[in-house]
Every structure is written in structure tokens, then in C-alpha cells.
């Protein structure tokens, strides 16, 4: 297992490097001057020229990239142009918020998606199936910002149940978590359903039935655990999707998270901050995948106790 993790991490290094390189160069081929942007209408050509020189922004792009890379290897991601704080500090403060949002959203998506998937698999083609699948897929079918807007409108402005935006406690997390979680619940439900249907076709389900187990025991004990295996993998892939969704959700609900930082960094050509975000999000996705692998193997003894001989 340990070797596996190390191997995965090793593979992720070129992946991360590739993403950093790509984003760095992409954002450098387009016109965009962080200093001019900071000064906006108050632009003064002399000032821009002077500050650019002082910040070494006029150096060739690859020199800047490797300078950044050198720092990054020592854990120094530099200082954000726009926010004037160390990138590591900004990400460290934003990360828990995004994590809280993503985890609670993931939780919501599981709470909606897994039971919906199970119910609609067990009652395939019934109204129950249609209802639960319909409900979970509904979430996937709406633009997140639009759902967010409607939620704010209904639950905050009309019903006065929840604050519109901001991030000052669990109460503030409810709407964004539901909006974001709902948007990926359909994926989970879908997968749970098809995976369960598939597992139910296996020989060992027939064995379980032939043992005289109750149907519920057959489904819960024998089918569910197996059918969760592919679901776990998708949960990990959710990380990337949730981060994408978080970009929007954080903006709509005013949550100071990594998604917003990344968007601002792109908009402001804030290279250090962008690169930091790239490293962090990529790392998160990789961690997510690793976690999935570990949970997967924890669930699946075929991997946990994989025979080194590689027999079938």
C-alpha cells in the first residue's frame, strides 16, 4: 500500500508540473499586466514601468517560471500581487472554508444520491425510481449560480430562514452546501443505481438468496458493499467537480475560499497566487484520488489482500 501511494504521488509530480507550466504560459501569451490592472484608470506609464521592473515582471517568461518553481520547491510560493500577502497564507486561510464547503456538499450529495440510487435500483422502473432519479438529476440540470440565486431568494428573502451570504458559522454553510451538493447528487445516484443493478446480477447474490437470507439482507449485506466500490471512485473524482462548482458557489454565497482565490488570480494575472492555487487544487484532486484508492482497497479485500503472485 505504502509503495502504491508513493508511486501515485510520484506520477502526480509531472502532472502538477505540467499544469503549472501550462497555466503559466497560457496566461503569459495574452496581454495582461497585473500592474496596469492594479492601477486601472489611474494608470501612469512611468509608475507601471518602474514597478514592473522592480517586480522583475519584464524578465522572459521562462525565467520567471523557473524562478517561481525554485521558490515553490522551498515551499515559498511568493506574494500575491493583488492581495499583498504570502500565497501560502492566503491559501491556508481559504482552504478550510473550501474544505468545509466541499465536504458538506459531498455529504449532501451522498445523502441525496445514495439512498435515491438504492431505492430506484430496487424499485426499477417504478414511480419511486422515477421520482428519486428525477429529483437527483434535477440538481445536475441547473446552473449552480441559478439554483443558488433561487435558494437565496426563497430561503433568505422570502422565508427569512437563512442568511443570504457570508461565512460566519454553520448556518451560512447550509444553502451553499445544498446547492453544490445537489448539483452532484445525480451523479452519485446514477452510479449507485447502475452499480447496484449490476451487482445484483452477480452469482454471489444468487448464492446469498440460496442461503435463505432475507431480501433486505441480500441487498444491504451482499449487494451494497460491492456496489459502493465504483461509487467511491466517483466520489474522489467529485473533488475536481466540487472545486469547479465551488468557484461559482463561493462567489454567489460570498465564501472566502480557494475557488474564488483562483478565479481572482486568473482575472488579475496574479501569477504567484494562481500557481499556488494550481498546486493546491491539483494536490487536492490527487489526495482525493488517493483517498478513493485507499477506501476502495479498504472495501475491497481483493486489493487489500491482493496476492502478490497476481493470480486471477
Amino acid at each position, binding site marked *: 500500500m505504502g509503495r502504491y501511494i508513493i508511486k501515485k504521488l510520484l506520477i502526480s509530480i509531472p502532472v502538477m508540473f505540467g*499544469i503549472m507550466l501550462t497555466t503559466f504560459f497560457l496566461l503569459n501569451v495574452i496581454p495582461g499586466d497585473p500592474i496596469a490592472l492594479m492601477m486601472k484608470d489611474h494608470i501612469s506609464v512611468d509608475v507601471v514601468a518602474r514597478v514592473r521592473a522592480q517586480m522583475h515582471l519584464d524578465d522572459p517568461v521562462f525565467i520567471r517560471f523557473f524562478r517561481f518553481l525554485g521558490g515553490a520547491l522551498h515551499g515559498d510560493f511568493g506574494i500575491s500581487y493583488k492581495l499583498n500577502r504570502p500565497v501560502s497564507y492566503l491559501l491556508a486561510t481559504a482552504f478550510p472554508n473550501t474544505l468545509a464547503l466541499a465536504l458538506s456538499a459531498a455529504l449532501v450529495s451522498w445523502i441525496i444520491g445514495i439512498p435515491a440510487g438504492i431505492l430506484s435500483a430496487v424499485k426499477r422502473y417504478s414511480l419511486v425510481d422515477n421520482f428519486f432519479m428525477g429529483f437527483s438529476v*434535477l440538481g445536475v440540470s441547473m446552473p449552480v449560480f*441559478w439554483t443558488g440565486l433561487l435558494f437565496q431568494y426563497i430561503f433568505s428573502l422570502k422565508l427569512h430562514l437563512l442568511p443570504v451570504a457570508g461565512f460566519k458559522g454553520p448556518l451560512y454553510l447550509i444553502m451553499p452546501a445544498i446547492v453544490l451538493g445537489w448539483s452532484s447528487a445525480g451523479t452519485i445516484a446514477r452510479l449507485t443505481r447502475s452499480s447496484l*443493478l449490476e451487482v445484483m446480477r452477480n452469482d454471489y447474490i444468487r448464492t446469498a438468496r440460496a442461503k435463505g437470507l432475507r431480501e433486505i439482507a441480500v441487498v444491504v449485506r451482499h449487494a451494497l458493499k460491492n456496489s459502493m466500490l465504483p461509487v467511491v471512485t466517483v466520489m474522489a473524482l467529485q473533488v475536481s467537480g466540487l472545486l469547479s462548482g465551488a468557484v461559482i458557489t463561493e462567489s454567489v454565497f460570498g465564501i472566502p475560499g480557494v475557488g474564488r482565490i483562483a478565479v481572482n488570480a486568473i482575472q488579475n494575472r496574479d501569477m504567484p497566487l494562481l500557481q499556488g492555487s494550481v498546486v493546491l*487544487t491539483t494536490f487536492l*484532486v490527487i489526495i482525493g484520488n488517493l483517498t478513493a484508492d485507499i477506501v476502495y482497497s479498504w472495501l475491497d479485500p481483493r486489493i487489500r489482500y491482493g496476492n502478490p503472485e497476481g493470480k486471477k
Partner: protein
Amino acid sequence: MSDLTLGPEVAQTLPEPVWKEIVAAFARNRLAVVGLGILLIVAFVALAAPLLAPYDPYKVKLGEQFLNPSWNHPIGTDMFGRDVFSRILYGTRISLLIGLVPTLISMTIGVILGLVSGYFGRRVDFLIMMLADMVLSFPSLLLAMIVMYTLGASLLNIFIALSAVGWAGTARVVRAQTLALKNKEFIEASRAIGTKDIAIMLKHILPNCLPQLLVLFTLNIPDSILSEASLSFLGIGAQPPAASWGLMVAGGREFLFNAPWVAIAPGIAILITVLAFNFLGDGLRDALDPYLKS
């Protein structure tokens, strides 16, 4: 291998798309049928938009902003006095285009890379999958954003950005399928005959990926439509005055209070279309289920 729902002895034939059976299985799924129906209507609307739309969707009338829904304007007018109904009808075209084109492009790329990666394996596989990992390891919206900034906002560039982001998923699926098929005996048989690799990929592997690709296709379209909406929210989606639903929602959200129809109507249009695609995809997946595995 055998379809156990039929009992081990009855299912004599390898599951094989028999269109009648697929259609029948599909028809059992009410949501899928509804989805298909809706999409047929949407497609019709897209084709017939000029005939159906009562107004020029781009005609600015500053005196007629935010008219309430009425007989003249079934869904009212927007901040420029344009008829929302007409814009939604025309929006069908753009939104379907945004759904279809990037999906087609990205899937073509994904299929080619996935085939090559899975079939040849080794270094090519390693490189392609590394590239796919790169794309998949970075939140797609941010990546699309960077591409949009790099290329500038335009419809064509949306296609490019969404394709650049979307191919990796398809590549992975096709690769997995190729790996599974590669050692099938009929592929071996073809190699034993001396068939060229390219012919094996095109004649044997690709056709056997089609059910998956079909499902993937229907489920990728709504993703594209929603991604464009998100990009529009960030201001880099379709460009005004285009009547893209995403843009209409993003632009209209400011007026949710005084003129809710401006944002809600296109939102519902997205919702219904995307939902229909999702239902269709789910239904197809269900109906094709026995044929999805190799």
C-alpha cells in the same frame, strides 16, 4: 457473460444491440421517453425558431424595457426591451450548438487518443494518460476559464475551451474499453489474419465502443450547456448580444426582483433541456446496459 436475468441457460446469445429490444427497454423508462420527447420539441424549435419567434431577438427597444408578460410578449421583455420569448426560441439554437459542437470535438479527440492509448499501450499510453490526468486534476471550470482568457471570449473559443477540457473523460473511457477489447478473441483473430492495427481499431474496437460513446455523448451535452452558463456567469461565456440561455440567465439575474422572467425563463429552458438530455442519457444507459460491458 450471460445475462442472468434470463437465467443461465436461456440466454444463448451474446448480448447484442437488437434495436427492437433496446427500444423496448428504453420505452419502459418513462423519464427517458419524456426526455426524448422534450428534445424532439427542442430540436424542432431550434430549426423553426425564425418561424415561431414573434420578434427579432436582437432588436433593442429602449422604450420597452421590462414589460410584463402579456399577449404581446409571452415572457415579457428584458433590459433592452427585447422579447424574452423570441430570445429563448433563438437561444435553443445557440444552446444546442454549445451542447453539441464541443461534445463532438472533445469526443473525437478523446476517441482517437483513447484508442491509441489503449491499443498501443506503453509510452504512448503513459504520455496520453498523463495529459488526461493533467486535465482531470485541475477543476475544469478554471481550466476553461484560462483557455477563454487566452483565446478571448467568443462562441468559437467556447467550443475550443470546452473541448480542451472535455476530451480527457472520453479518452479514459475509450481507453478502458479498448484495453478490455484488445484481448478479445475476435481482435486476436483479426490480428492472426494479418489485419493492420488501424483497421482493427476502426473496424473492431471503435464499433464496440459505440454504445458507451452514445451514452457519454448524451450526458456530455448537458455538461457543455451548463459549463457555458457558468462561464457566462463569470463573464466569459457567449458574447452579447447572443441569445445563449446561459448568457441570458447570467445577465438577467440582476433583475430577479423586478423582472424575474428575464432570468427564470431561460433558466427553466436550460433546466428542461439539460434534464431531458440527462434523462435520455440515463435511459440509454439503462437500455444499453447489457451492451456496455465488454
